[in-house]
């Protein structure tokens, strides 16, 4: 595919910049607005590229599931509102979509889930925040309270995301990165990274307290909340292994909380 790419923006999530190229000034402005502090100047180092092929808006098949599969060494990604390809050997891909921020956001989530799977990391349905230089994850499905807890965060807490957390192993444990993948908070996270201190499984209840969680339950809970889209047996196995490594190294506890700012007194 040949495009006249006149606008370039490097969207840097988790320290993995993806250079997005589009010939539409309007779409470039939309991306700048959407990704804010996650947009950097294009660097000369290793960088992935995505060319955007904008098509007119059409009726979106809302309920069409995302499909991610490897064909001839290239990742083929489709959903009702986009079609995309990415070649991990060249680090280059393209996205065909209408001018909207949701499609490219979906592609970025998929690509990062693929990148992380090779590195022992993952994307997980969890809010995350940094306090006193340490990161905390709050995992749960929709309605568990991720956005509520994020809204209640006191001023000394930096919210990394209220929806999808980005986790990668480091020499001394795990690091959580901020993401622009927002939930109901509708606000991108802080573009920060911090060593991960704990993961809490969110449960709303009549009071605020922390309970221990046995390792098997911890692994099950994290697996349930992992975002992984690809139909790829090898990578699924890698993610499975990563989750068990994670629960062996990061404390996982249950946070029972009532929607009250005092819950943050427990997170230190």
């Amino acid at each position, binding site marked *: 595919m040949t495009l006249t790419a006149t606008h370039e923006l490097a969207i840097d999530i988790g320290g993995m910049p993806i250079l997005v190229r589009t010939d539409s000034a309007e779409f470039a402005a939309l991306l700048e607005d959407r990704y804010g502090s996650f947009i950097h100047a294009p660097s000369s180092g290793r960088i992935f590229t995505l060319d955007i092929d904008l098509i007119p808006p059409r009726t979106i098949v809302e309920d069409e599931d995302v499909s991610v599969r490897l064909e001839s060494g290239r990742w083929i990604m489709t959903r009702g509102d986009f079609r995309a390809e990415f070649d991990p050997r060249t680090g280059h891909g393209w996205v065909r979509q209408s001018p909207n921020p949701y499609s490219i956001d979906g592609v970025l989530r998929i690509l990062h889930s693929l990148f992380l799977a090779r590195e022992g990391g993952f994307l997980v349905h969890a809010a995350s925040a940094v306090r006193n230089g340490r990161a905390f994850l709050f995992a749960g499905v929709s309605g568990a309270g991720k956005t509520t807890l994020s809204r209640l965060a006191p001023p000394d807490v930096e919210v990394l995301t209220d929806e999808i957390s980005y986790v990668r192993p480091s020499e001394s444990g795990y690091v959580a990165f901020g993401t622009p993948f927002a939930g109901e908070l509708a606000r991108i996270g802080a573009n920060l990274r911090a060593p991960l201190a704990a993961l809490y499984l969110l449960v709303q209840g009549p009071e605020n307290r922390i309970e221990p969680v*046995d*390792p*098997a339950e911890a*692994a*099950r809970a994290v*697996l*349930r909340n992992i975002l*992984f889209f690809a*139909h790829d*047996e*090898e990578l*699924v*196995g890698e993610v*499975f*292994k990563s989750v*068990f490594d994670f*629960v*062996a190294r990061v404390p996982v506890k249950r946070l029972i909380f009532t929607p009250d700012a005092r819950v943050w007194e427990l997170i230190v």
Partner: protein
Amino acid sequence: MSCLMTTYVARSKQVAARMLGGEMMIMSPRDTTLFNLNDVGSVIWESADGQTPLDDIVARLCVEFDVAPEVARQDAETFIQELAEHGIMHVSDQPIGAEPPRQEPS
């Protein structure tokens, strides 16, 4: 599975499994279904080396869990059928190439 022929079962080598907190967990790499194996399931899983006849596995279940052979066989066949549907257990009337379990240290 017929009762008239010898049946062999084998773990798929594509499957990752972990024992954690005394609980065996395995995931179908095909559809990411997570299975938590109970004690009976764990014995079947460990025994499913492709070389041990199902009859021998059932006999082991009878001894270890003090159950009647017909109950043990029914349980084993149901369990194996479910795992086979997710591509994580192979069933054959011939011995199946030995596959060491990919269980990671817990």
